[in-house]
């Protein structure tokens, strides 16, 4: 199989065994994969543990877009980014951990920016509901007092 592969292509294998054939330039947007390729410790097939096929496909889509659109206007890319990261809680979380684990900087930046925008202007209570799902807990404790400076070792 590896002999039939074009020279600058790599195979990424997700945690659930699905394989993706991607150009090397796209794959090496992940610093972790780049290091493996540079160290030549990888065969053509690179296992990507902890990332399932669904998430890996999204990451590859993002990297492909960023690789192709280097020459494109930055604003187009921004629009793509903001649409790309606009996902449900679960996909967002899985993408963040995948991007962090495989060290894909552009994706991680876009995702963290998205989470920050979701947090801005909200109370502790609302953030907890949104991200932690502590609904019952928090209805009771959404009180006025917000003893934020409780860490008294601050000097």
């Amino acid at each position: 199989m590896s002999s039939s592969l074009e020279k600058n292509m790599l195979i990424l294998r997700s945690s659930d065994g699905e394989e993706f054939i991607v150009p090397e330039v796209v794959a090496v947007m992940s610093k972790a994969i780049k290091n493996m390729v540079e160290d030549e410790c990888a065969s053509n097939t690179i296992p990507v543990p902890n990332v399932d096929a669904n998430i890996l496909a999204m990451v590859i889509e993002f990297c492909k877009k960023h690789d192709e659109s280097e020459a494109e206007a930055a604003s187009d890319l921004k629009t793509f980014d903001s649409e790309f990261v606009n996902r449900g809680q679960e996909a967002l979380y899985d993408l963040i951990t995948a991007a962090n684990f495989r060290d894909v900087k552009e994706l991680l930046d876009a995702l963290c920016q998205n989470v920050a925008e979701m947090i801005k202007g909200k109370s502790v209570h609302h953030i907890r509901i949104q991200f932690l799902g502590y609904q019952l807990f928090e209805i009771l404790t959404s009180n006025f007092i917000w003893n934020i400076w409780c860490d008294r070792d601050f000097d």
Partner: protein
Amino acid sequence: MEDGNEENKDDVDELEDEVDGNDDVAHDHREGHAGMVASATDALFSSFVFGTTSWLLVQMFGCFTIWKCLLGGVLVSKKLMMVDWSQLPYDIIRLIAIRLNAVEDFLSFSFVCHSWRSFYLTKSWTPGPQIPWLMLSDNENSDIRSFFSLYKNKVYELELPEARGRRCWGSPHGWIVIIGSDLEIRLLNPFSRACINLPPQSTFDGQFDFHSAWYQFIDKAIIIKKSNESHTIEEEFLVMVIYGPYQDLAFSRPGYTSWVNVEVSSYFRFLDVVLFNDQIFALCYVGDLVVIEIDAPGPPTVLYIAPPPHQLAWEKLYLVESSGDLLMVYRYEYVTLSGYPSLTQFEVYKFDLSMREWTKLEDLGNMALFVGDNYSMSVSSSNIFNCECNKIYFITDTVEQWWSYNESFIGRDVGMYCMVDGTVEPFFFGADYPSYYSCPIWVMPSLS
């Protein structure tokens, strides 16, 4: 079955984790990590103390929660979330935190759960420009001090026993000057609760008029911070106070043993002081601009710069540094036919250093000014954090005036003056009961 057990175990782990957090952090229990029953009692407690929620409503919720708890309702609600955001690695928490601009957002984020607080605890978050918080009046019977955030339009209550029973003056550096009936003077950061002693009132050169009360001795205190020099925190601060019956000027620094008087003829009664172009500018009665030189060898000197733009009667004068300009702000109070409330108007003049004269400004551009019993501040970004540009945010800051009200402040005498049409729009921060020695002040939030 096994799955269920695992979920269960995770939950227990997390609860334990959060209980651990509670051990480290006093008062954290109010945020309700500790568990269902504890949070129900907390809510009851806080509704007793602060009356923000209807007692009955909370009790109903309490019963409901205990019932749900018995049925394993916690686990049901937890299972709705398939991913656990509280398990985010530190690197990601940091990346999210540095993208939050407002202190309020960063603190909300940091207090969501134990692990999200990890970046806050490193104390390495560096905020961009902020807008001031309004520190409300003191309540002698409580260690709690309220702060109003314009951005969140919300009152935060912070435990601050250091400021209890003390008069305060705000600053743009996160620090305030406090004086109490013990006549001790200190610098206090209300957000970190760090405290630095200054020489006590007894070390003033000027004679203390025993007929006046402790809270009248200092008229205004101004904290000047030179941050570009790599000094220790003690050397960074210069505190200037306008004090005594003749509104004299004195200065001191942390570590000094006494206050140093700025000797002038009795003609100069000081009104306000500001740092501009690394020089200390002051306004004197009736609006004359002077420069004060304190670092040169020999006693401090006062250099006359310019007369005021006009001689009309004003209520209060402020000196503000605003994006490289030196501004003088006139506040006028006009009594209306109905007597009260009076009509507050402002005029702003800009100083031309080369011509040494004031020119009237009709427009502040994208600036907003914050004036009151504090170092007058300007915020340069347009419309950040619900702060509207081309407005003057003001507080009636004459203690005598506060006495005469004898009732609560519900946004009256605290408002936004619009430079375009001269209207005053009050903003509402709930009932605030000023005491005879304390009125609301502007202070910039700072976590360091």
